[in-house]
């Protein structure tokens, strides 16, 4: 672990980490579900509420101008954070799920026809499966899923073979939320370009772990959520290639997305506002901007190095527990550790470790096809973040030993 990375200082920025759970200090190992917010994010949203609250893009009064500046300022920060070409390509949504639904409802419904195919993988989150099912039902297109290898990597050979002349879209996750697998985006991108197929990346689990550069990835759409990146819930982003976004019809109508409205006919606003109908989540967008600045101040490479080193240490420590099996052992993994304990249902693991003050996720992780692949009803999942430390890992290991005592 890097000596320059001052973990005590990193932790001090997160008020949530100071609370106790069932009388014990909190060991929060569930950032893959939702990461807590640092003080700077909470204060940025608080400032808006106390001093600038008003609507954006509307009034001529000072507060409205300030709110607009803060909201559009957040968009500028997002553009820089993911290296999008311009703020016209940065659309605020409620989260990753809404970002993908935007593409499914606007692009897919107007571009797919009967017999066309959408190619995904077997390790997608439900948010990158169900929107395509809906679009396919509406258009007569077919959803095709590439299988996994037993270690949780994508079967690239099969993936390649599943690209057909009817493939109209490729939609893949960058990091599996259930397994931690990092997908080979450069390889997938090459295939997409080679076949001239637009492709979308679900970045929900990747955005907080290392540098995400959408131009380097080269995808046509990139979706992520604020609350996986130490921002608030209710805000997410869709990055889209401008030419595609221009060609797409709006998906929700209302205020702000229009230039002019007459009863007979309306004209759409320009990008990115064409896809932002109604009053947006202003405070949440400001919070997301602050979260990105916080992450930048820690250094994304430093965070990733810290997390990966700790995750490797954690996997070793966990494997010393009798009957513990790690689900997902890909060569390249994000700091997400899914596991099972022989003879103990994950739900029971979750409850017992919770009473020890350790917060982990148990269940199917909104990735039921992954559970099906492994023949499991559920797994337990510990996920690490910038503030995770050695003590969190020890607490988890001790809590799991307690689970073994109770159930064996």
């Amino acid at each position, binding site marked *: 672990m890097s000596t320059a990375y001052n973990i005590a200082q990193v932790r001090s920025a997160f008020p949530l980490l100071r609370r106790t759970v069932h009388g014990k200090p909190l060991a929060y190992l569930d950032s893959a579900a939702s990461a807590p917010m640092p003080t700077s994010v909470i204060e940025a949203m608080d400032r808006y509420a106390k001093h600038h609250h008003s609507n954006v893009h509307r009034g001529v009064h000072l507060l409205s101008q300030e709110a607009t500046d803060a909201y559009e300022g957040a968009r500028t920060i997002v553009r820089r954070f993911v290296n999008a070409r311009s703020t016209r390509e940065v659309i605020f949504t409620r989260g990753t799920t809404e970002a993908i639904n935007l593409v499914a409802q606007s692009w897919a419904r107007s571009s797919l026809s009967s017999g066309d195919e959408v190619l995904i993988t077997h390790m997608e989150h439900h948010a990158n499966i169900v929107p395509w099912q809906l679009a396919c039902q509406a258009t007569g297109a077919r959803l095709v899923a590439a299988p996994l290898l037993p270690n949780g990597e994508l079967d690239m050979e099969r993936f390649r073979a599943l690209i057909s002349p009817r493939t109209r879209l490729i939609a893949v996750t960058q990091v599996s939320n259930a397994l931690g697998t990092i997908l080979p985006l450069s390889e997938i991108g090459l295939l997409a370009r080679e076949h001239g197929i637009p492709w979308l990346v679900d970045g929900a689990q990747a955005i907080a772990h290392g540098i995400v550069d959408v131009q380097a990835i080269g995808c046509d759409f990139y979706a992520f959520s604020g609350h996986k990146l130490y921002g608030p819930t209710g805000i997410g982003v869709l990055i889209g290639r401008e030419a595609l976004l221009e060609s797409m019809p709006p998906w929700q109508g209302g205020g702000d997305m229009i230039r002019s409205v007459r009863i007979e006919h309306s004209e759409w606003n320009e990008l990115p506002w064409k896809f932002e109908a109604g009053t947006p989540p202003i405070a949440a967008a400001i919070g997301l901007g602050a979260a990105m600045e916080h992450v930048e101040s820690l250094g994304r490479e430093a965070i990733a190095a810290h997390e990966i080193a700790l995750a490797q240490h954690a996997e070793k420590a966990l494997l010393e527990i009798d009957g513990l099996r790690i689900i997902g052992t890909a060569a390249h993994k994000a700091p997400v550790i899914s596991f099972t304990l022989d003879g103990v249902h*994950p*739900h*029971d693991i979750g*409850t017992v470790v919770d009473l020890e003050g350790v917060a982990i996720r*148990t269940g199917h992780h909104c990735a039921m096809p992954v559970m099906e692949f492994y023949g499991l009803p559920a797994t337990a999942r510990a996920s690490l973040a910038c503030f995770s430390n050695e003590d969190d890992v020890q607490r988890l290991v001790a809590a799991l030993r307690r689970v073994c005592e*109770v*159930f064996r």
Partner: protein
Amino acid sequence: MDLKDLYREVILDHNRSPRNFGRLDPADADATGHNPLCGDRLHLTLRLDGDRISDLAFDGQGCAISVASASLMTEAVKGQSRGEFSVLYQDMHRLLTEAEFHPAHDLGKLMALGGVREFPARVKCASLCWHTLDAALKQNDAANATGGTTISTE
């Protein structure tokens, strides 16, 4: 909150060695219960002798609470009439959800399940089998034939 309030010895015992585990064949009624949150799935088969549950069995996959609850239930309701089950079903619902519930009838070992009250995320685990049995009986009542109802806690 203490671990022992939830995982009482009788619950751990019934989880380790579930009673009446398996399937009755032939059966007069059956139903499948599913808890999508945790992936619990249990299947109940029962035989009826007029108004009475003469025999029942369960199988499936679930957490300790749902397995123990199903196991304890099969022991408790075997031999009961529909009317008796209906009273017990109401009592169990209250036992699992109401803090100050003192049942009028002795619930015996089933009282051990009362600990889930303190764990709201786990109430559905304990109640799944009860809803499933209720559905199996109602379905049998309605169709008067084996059908295979599926119920979900979501």
